[in-house]
C-alpha cells in the first residue's frame, strides 16, 4: 500500500507554511488567534488546491512491453483520490481519429486506484500491422465523455502575454527538447538585449565642409554587431510568435481529439 503521508501534493502549501502566513489556529495563547476574516481567506486560498486534489488521477510513466504480437501498457496513476476510477485505453492517429482496442485485459473501463504498477494488455495488437501507420496510445481515466485532453487553442492567449506560459497550461512539457522556460528566457532575453543594443547605438561625429555644413554623416557605432538591435528584437519576437503558434496548434489538437472522442471512435 502507498503511504499517503509521504506524498505531499506539489501545489498544496504545507502546514508550517500556513502557520508562518496566518498564525497557528490551534494556539491557545492570548497573542494569536484566527479571526473570521483570516479564516475565510485561508479557506478561499485552499479551495482551488482542494478542488485540484479531488481531480481524477492522471497517467504518468507510461511504457510498453510486447510479446507474441501483444502489447502491454505499464503506467502509474497519480492522484490524491482514494476512490478507484474506470480506466480506458485509446489510440489516436496523425489525423486525430480515435481508436478503441476491443480485446484488452483487464477489460476497458476496469476500476483502478491511484498507484504504480498498473497494466493493461492489448491482446490483438497485431492488428496494428493491418492498420498501418503509427498510433499514439492514450490512457483515459474516468468517463471518456467527460475526458479533456487539455486546454484548447485559447491557451495561446497565455503565451501571448508571456512566451512559454501557454505550454505549461497545455501540459506534457517534460518530453519537449526546448522547454517552455527556455522560450521565456530566450524571447525576453533577446528583446532585452535588442533594446539595450538600441539604446547603446550612437552615430559618430559627422565630417564638415569648411563652412560648417555637413559633408558626410558620422558612422553608426553598434553595440554588438551591424544591425544588432533589429536582429535581436526580431529574433525575440520570432520566438514569441512561434510559441503562440505552437501552443495554438497543440490546443487545436486537444480540441479535435475531444470532439472526435465524443463523435466517432473506431474499434480495433
Amino acid at each position, binding site marked *: 500500500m502507498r503511504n499517503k503521508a509521504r506524498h505531499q501534493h506539489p501545489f498544496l502549501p504545507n502546514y508550517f507554511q500556513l502557520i508562518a502566513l496566518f498564525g497557528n489556529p490551534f494556539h491557545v495563547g492570548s497573542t494569536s488567534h484566527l479571526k473570521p476574516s483570516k479564516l475565510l481567506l485561508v479557506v478561499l486560498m485552499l479551495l482551488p488546491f482542494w478542488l485540484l486534489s479531488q481531480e481524477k488521477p492522471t497517467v504518468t510513466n507510461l511504457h510498453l512491453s*510486447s*510479446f*507474441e504480437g501483444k502489447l502491454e501498457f505499464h503506467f502509474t496513476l497519480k492522484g490524491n483520490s482514494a476512490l478507484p476510477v474506470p480506466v480506458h485505453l485509446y489510440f489516436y492517429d496523425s489525423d486525430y481519429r480515435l481508436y478503441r482496442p476491443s480485446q484488452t485485459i483487464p477489460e476497458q473501463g476496469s476500476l483502478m486506484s491511484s498507484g504504480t504498477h498498473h497494466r493493461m494488455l492489448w491482446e490483438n495488437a*497485431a492488428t496494428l500491422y493491418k492498420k498501418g501507420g503509427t498510433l*499514439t496510445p492514450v490512457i483515459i481515466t474516468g468517463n471518456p465523455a467527460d475526458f479533456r485532453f487539455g486546454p484548447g487553442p485559447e491557451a495561446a492567449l497565455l503565451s501571448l502575454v508571456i512566451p512559454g506560459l501557454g505550454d505549461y497550461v497545455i501540459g506534457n512539457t517534460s*518530453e519537449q527538447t526546448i522547454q517552455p522556460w527556455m522560450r521565456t528566457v530566450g524571447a525576453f532575453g533577446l528583446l532585452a538585449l535588442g533594446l539595450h543594443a538600441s539604446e547603446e547605438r550612437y552615430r559618430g561625429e559627422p565630417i564638415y565642409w569648411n563652412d560648417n555644413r555637413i559633408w558626410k554623416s558620422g558612422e553608426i557605432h553598434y553595440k554588438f554587431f551591424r544591425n544588432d538591435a533589429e536582429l535581436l528584437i526580431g529574433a525575440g519576437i520570432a520566438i514569441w510568435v512561434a510559441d503562440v503558434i505552437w501552443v495554438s496548434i497543440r490546443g487545436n489538437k486537444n480540441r479535435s481529439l475531444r470532439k472526435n472522442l465524443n463523435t466517432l471512435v473506431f474499434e480495433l
Partner: protein
Amino acid sequence: MIFTVLIQLQSKTQPQTTFVIRGGESHAVSYFSSERSVKQQWLNPYLDENWQAGRVVLNGGDTWEAHLRLDLYRKEMELVMNGDSLYVSEPFAINYIELDGRKFVYRFYTEKVAGDLLLGSDYFEQLNTAGPVRLLLQRSLRVDEQRMAPGNVQLSINFETKSRFATVNRYFLQTHHEVPAIKIKRNKRQLLKLLNDERAELKRFARSNRKSFRNPAHMAEIIDHYNQLKTNGTHEK
C-alpha cells in the same frame, strides 16, 4: 500464417507475370522482365526489385524456402514459393527472415515526436549478429512529387508531375526481445545512455578498436561486444 489467394499466368516456358491479390486489389508483378521504363524506376517501392532467394523462419521453428522481396511502401514481405506469389499476412508469427544474406525481423517500435509517443510496427534489418540487444535499421519510403510543367484548368491541361520515392533510413535499438524497439540517433551519447551499465567498457572497446558511434557497421560491432559482455557475465575491467 495466412497467405493470400493467388493466380498465376504462365507462358509456354516460364511465368512472365504473377498477379498478387490483396483483398479487393490485384497487382501485377513482373519479375522476369529485363527492361524497365524510367517511370517504373521512379516508382519502385521495393528494397530490391528483383526476387532474392531467402528463407522464412517461423516462431515455432519451421522454415520455408522462398524467393522474397520487401515492399517498403506497403511494409509487406512478398514471396514466391513453389510458383505461388504470396505476402506475409501475419508477420508477428515470423521469427526472422533471411534475405540475400541479411536478417529481417518484424517488430513493434516507438518514437517520440513533439512530446507524443508514436507506436507502430515494421520490418527491420538486424545489423548486429544476435540479441539480446539488437541494432535495427528501418527503411521507409518518402514520396516526393515534383511539378515538371504547368497545367491549365480551363484548357484541361493537367499538371505534369514526376513522382519519386526516396528511401529514408532510421535506426532503432531493441534492448530486450519483449520491449518495442526505440528510435535512436547515431551518436555516442544516446547509445551509451541506453547501454549505461557497460558504458566504460564500451568506450574503451570503441577507442581501442577505432570504432565510431556514428557508423552503423561500427555501432553493430559495439552492440555485439555489449551482448558478449552480458552473455559472459564478467569481463576484465
